[in-house]
């Protein structure tokens, strides 16, 4: 079954039409998406850097992860909400754009990984340094793929 009819439905929905025909809605939603990117980038990096033995080395990784958690979740919510709106306005273009599928696949993997494996490793009392580093590198790689894929959707 093809997802194309669903994408076309999104694009021709009232929300999709409104954003596409407005000259300012898309840029404004895009701005929220960018501000969300800054916060999610910071809250992911500050913990991954610690797991790699960089940055805030004086703090236990578990404490940093706890502190960063609400900023990570909050910015993720902003990203998802603004992202869905941006998608709705140009869903058909996304359907035919490889970068969109790369981004969605890595996003799914990044979210799953962050809230399962990474969460457990970051919260561990005595984490193995090797495991911590591997998890941090996987996290940075997955989230980078999401970011690069997202930027690339804009180039068509």
């Amino acid at each position, binding site marked *: 079954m093809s997802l194309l009819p669903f994408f076309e439905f999104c694009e021709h929905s009232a929300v999709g039409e409104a954003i596409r025909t407005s000259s300012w809605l898309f840029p404004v939603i895009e701005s929220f998406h960018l501000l969300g990117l800054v916060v999610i980038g910071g809250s992911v990096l500050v913990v991954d850097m610690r797991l790699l033995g960089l940055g805030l080395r004086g703090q236990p990784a578990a404490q940093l992860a706890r502190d960063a958690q609400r*900023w990570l979740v909050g910015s993720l919510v902003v990203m998802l909400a603004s992202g869905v709106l941006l998608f709705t306005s140009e869903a058909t273009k996304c359907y035919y754009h490889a970068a969109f599928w790369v981004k969605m696949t890595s996003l799914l993997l990044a979210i799953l990984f962050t809230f399962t494996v990474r969460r457990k490793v970051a919260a561990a009392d005595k984490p193995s340094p090797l495991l911590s580093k591997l998890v941090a590198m996987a996290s940075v790689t997955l989230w980078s793929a999401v970011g690069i894929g997202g930027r690339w959707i804009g180039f068509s």
Partner: protein
Amino acid sequence: MIDYHVAASADSRYDSISESFWPPRMSITGFCEWLANTPGSIALHESLWVYPIVESVHVLTLCLFLGLTVMLDLRLLGMAFRSARVSEVTKRLLPWTTAGFVMMVASGLLLFYAIPVRTFQNIFFRLKLAMLLLAGLNVWVFHSTIYRTVAAWDLDTVPPKRARVAGGLSLALWAGIVVAGRMIAYSWFD
């Protein structure tokens, strides 16, 4: 006073100028026009891959530079990492935010170099520059005043008011800078 109304194509003064290696003495707009005619600017402007890559570096380095700066601002506001010393957060993040800032400036200069005339005349670009100056001023004031006494409030879960103001101003100015930067690409007022 800057002359905004020098017509690029109609003014033959700049035809010979583009062949000279050094920019001649002229207005900023004139300088931008000279810059736009240099081979490097034209190549970057017309490149299929280099320009989008530079632009992507500029956007994604936000995570490193601004993402970590926001983490520091949140500590100054007492909204995150409250058990960490403020001085530790400042010192340990500084090498990373500095590296990120260098990448932001380098890629930003290249983006300007690719499209100098239009960018210079863009209202959002000018707003962005003004806010960048204010953000720099904010850092300078913070470091030369309240941060000097950091030893006295290093472990405060909520730092003193002047530190919180610096953190809040930083967040507001940088949000404005990001949004203005994004808006440069839209040509509403060109």
